[in-house]
Every structure is written in structure tokens, then in C-alpha cells.
């Protein structure tokens, strides 16, 4: 099937472009890849101070810093991947007008580069989990399928945004604004329980809320995820990917003409 050609015929291209993305980013900086860890760490420390010491946000019985970081990591991955993927076609205009291969390779490689960042930033979480003596259970293996579903959702949305951004560059600015609003409507810095009951439905239709709650549940509460919510999120994510892919492929023929 055409959809899977990125993982067969174009596997090497995908990995080559992903590495280019990763290698180029910090080449000119002294600390290099340390920024991938320093960035979320400092962001987390500042936010942890503000929200736990000043605003006194509840954190479900675990230190707020850890509570926050478990939500912040997948959120930062999501927003970084969307931003990178949205600009990926425009950034590769030179290639798009010269040579043919499936264009979604640019979108996916932009996302995969952020996956590598996420793994590095994860090391800080491991340190925190040990430092605060948070006991884990085997439920933590749920992180893998949850992340899988999050990837599907991210890829699907990215396909829409990247194609649309090629037609109108407004998309990348709208995205920046949209992500700020979206983050506040997702339980990243606060627990779901603090959100007004009346508006709680927002979390049900927001797959990112489902993912972040599920991560916290399986990592910090040593429990099972909410299967119902996760199931719905999986269906929504797959639909988003199918629609996104269809939309992307429909426009792909004109990419070289409009870029």
C-alpha cells in the first residue's frame, strides 16, 4: 500500500532526512544537543515554581515538578512536532520542485526528529522518578501504545497543516496561537480534577487530554489507563490520519506549482 512506502521503499530516505534534521539543528551551538534536555528542564523548573509555590496547583499526591513534567514532555513533543512538520514542506521547497518522491517523507521526518528529542528529555524524568522514590508498576508498559496513538494523531494533523501551509503561510501563525490555547485546554499544568465540571467534556474530545491523563495514570498512579477514553482517542486519531493523508495526497500534485 502506498501509505506504507515510507517504511519500505523510502526507508533510507526517511532516516537520512530525519538525521539531517537532527544534526543541523544544534551544529552552531556550544552546548549542542544538551539544549534538548536543558530546555524542558528549565521550563519545568520555572513553571513548577510558579504553579506549585505561588498558585498552589494540586498534583494528585506526587511532587508537582514530576506531575508537571509527565504532562509537559508529551505536550512539548506534540507542539514541537506540529510546528516542525507544518513548515517542513516550505523548508524543502528546493527539493520539492526538483525531484519526485512521496512528499509526506518531509512531514514524517520532521516528527521523528522530535521523537529523538523526546527520548533525550526523558532522561530527566527518570532522574526525577528515582529522586522522589516514585514506585512504578508494570502498567508503565502502557506508555508505548499511548505514545503510538499520540504519534498517529500528530502525524495525521501534521499532514493537514503542512499541505495547507504550502498554500497559505498563515497556517504557521495560526498554529502558534492555536497551540497556546490548546495547551490551556489540556491538563498539562493542572490536573483534570481542577477543571470545572461543566467544561470537562472538552477533555473528552481533546485527544491530547486523554493521552496526558493516561501517561500520568500509568506512570505516576501505577494504574491502568481509562480504556474507554483511550479507545475513543485511538479511533479519532486513526480517522484524523486517514483524512489527513487523503487531503495531503489530493494536494500533493500541485505542491511543486505553488511552493
Amino acid at each position, binding site marked *: 500500500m502506498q501509505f506504507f512506502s515510507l517504511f519500505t521503499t523510502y526507508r533510507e530516505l526517511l532516516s*537520512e532526512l530525519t538525521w*539531517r534534521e537532527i*544534526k*543541523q539543528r544544534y551544529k*552552531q551551538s556550544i552546548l549542542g544537543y544538551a539544549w534538548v534536555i536543558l530546555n524542558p528542564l528549565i521550563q519545568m523548573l520555572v513553571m513548577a515554581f510558579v504553579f506549585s509555590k505561588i498558585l498552589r496547583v494540586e498534583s494528585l499526591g506526587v511532587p508537582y515538578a514530576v506531575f508537571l513534567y509527565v504532562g509537559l514532555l508529551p505536550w512539548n513533543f506534540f507542539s514541537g512536532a506540529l510546528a516542525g512538520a507544518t513548515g517542513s514542506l516550505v523548508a524543502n521547497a528546493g527539493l520539492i520542485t526538483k*525531484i519526485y518522491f512521496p512528499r509526506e517523507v518531509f512531514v514524517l521526518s520532521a516528527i521523528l526528529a522530535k521523537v529523538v528529542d523526546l527520548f533525550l528529555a526523558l532522561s530527566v524524568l527518570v532522574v526525577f522518578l528515582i529522586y522522589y522514590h516514585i514506585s512504578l508498576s508494570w502498567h508503565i508498559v502502557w506508555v508505548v501504545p499511548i505514545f503510538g496513538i499520540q504519534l498517529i494523531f500528530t502525524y495525521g494533523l501534521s499532514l493537514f497543516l503542512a499541505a495547507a501551509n504550502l498554500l*497559505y503561510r498563515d497556517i504557521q501563525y495560526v498554529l502558534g496561537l492555536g497551540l497556546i490555547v490548546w495547551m490551556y485546554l489540556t491538563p498539562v499544568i493542572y490536573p483534570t480534577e481542577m477543571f470545572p465540571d461543566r467544561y470537562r467534556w472538552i477533555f473528552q474530545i481533546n485527544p491530547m487530554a486523554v493521552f496526558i491523563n493516561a501517561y500520568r495514570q500509568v506512570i505516576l498512579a501505577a494504574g491502568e489507563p481509562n480504556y474507554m477514553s483511550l479507545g475513543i482517542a485511538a479511533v479519532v486519531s486513526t480517522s484524523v490520519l486517514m483524512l489527513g493523508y487523503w487531503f495531503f495526497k489530493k494536494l500533493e*500534485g500541485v505542491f*511543486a*506549482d505553488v511552493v
Partner: protein
Amino acid sequence: MNKLASAITIQNVSKLYYKQHQRTLKEFIPALLGRNKTHETFWAVKNIDLEVKKGESIGIIGPNGSGKSTLLKLIAGVTQPTSGSISVTGRIAPLIELGAGFHPELTGRENVFLNGVILGMTRAEIEKKFKTIVDFAELWEFIDQPIKHYSSGMYLRLAFAVAIHTDPEILLIDEILAVGDHEFQRKCVTRIEEMKKNKVTIVVVSHSPDLIREHTEHALWLEGGEVKDSGGAKKVVAKYFG
């Protein structure tokens, strides 16, 4: 395989381009409401018929804006014809604006692999040819430096060296030989002649009458997106430049 098998078949192909004036919604919406023109259309190529057999070489000539590069893009498959049909058999290597797949922050070595994979080689193939590629480019001294420190001549040499070692069945060349020093140009031409002997199909866009006359069998003369003349390279070039 049939010796006269077709590599490129173009049947009655036309390409209409939209030129959109507004790149953002902020510009687009007022233009739409004010009934200003939001886009213009023009035919970049019109009613083109062309058949290139396997192992043949053809030069495309014509003034600027006559649709030469559009035709090359159509053959490369990066843009779709508005009408008509194109069929291309065989692995294509486009030498259109060399180095599009290069990244300035990466080293020469990293860029060879990146560009090679973009042009359809596998990493294993590139590894095997790496020595030949760098020999051809004569860049051993600088191969582990970021290519942003390269001169434009070095950049071109590396890009050409990669592209020409991809073992394509069809080679598309767009005016690239105009750059680079004389000696390197000769080297490239020699390599192209070698590929011709190996039955590689070659399509060249060039403003150089000598290049077309001496290195391609056929020529296609485009004018305003349409075919003005086609046939033997010597005959068409003589008419065009005469």
C-alpha cells in the same frame, strides 16, 4: 529488452500555471472582496508530443520562458500535466539546480550520503561509490568540513559528482554545465558520453549550441510553450541559431 523501447513518451501534454498574487489570507480576502485579480493563468507548455527511446539523447532549446524547464519538471514527475499523458520508464536522476538536497551545516561527507539517498541510492551503494565520487569531485581535503565553507565551484563539483554516480537510466540536465571551471566541465561531458555509451537516456536543456550539437542526437525547439521544430540535433540547432 527491445532496443527501441521507449524511455519517455509524452502525448499531447499541456501545463497551465496559476500565478497566485496573494500569499497570505490577509492579502487574499480583500483582493477577493474587491474583485481584484487573485490569480493569473498561463500555458507553460502546450500540446507537446515527444518520444525518447531508451539510450537516445535529446537537447531542448528555446528562449527563456519557452517552457523548457517546465517540460523537464513534467518528465521528472514533480509537477502534473493539466492535460495529456506522460509515461517514463526507468530510474530518473535529475541534475536540475544541483545540490538542492545539500545542507550547508553538514560536512561534505554527510551531504554525499544525504544527497545520494535523495537521488534514490541506498546507503550501501553510496558507501561503495564514495571513493569514486570524492575522486571525481577532487575534494578529499575538504570532505569533512561543513560545506558552507566551500566555494561555489567546490559545491557544484560535489553535487555533480554525486548526481552523476547514481546510475540513472534517464538523466535530466538543466543548464548545469554552464557553471564550474573549464576542466571540470570537460570531465562532466566525458562522464556523460560514457553514460551514453551505457545506454542511459539523456535529456539536456541548454543554451549552448555546441553542447547540443555535439552531444545529443535529437533536438526539440520550444517557443512560447509550443514545439517550433524538432528532429536531428544539427539541423534544429542550425535553424535556431541561424
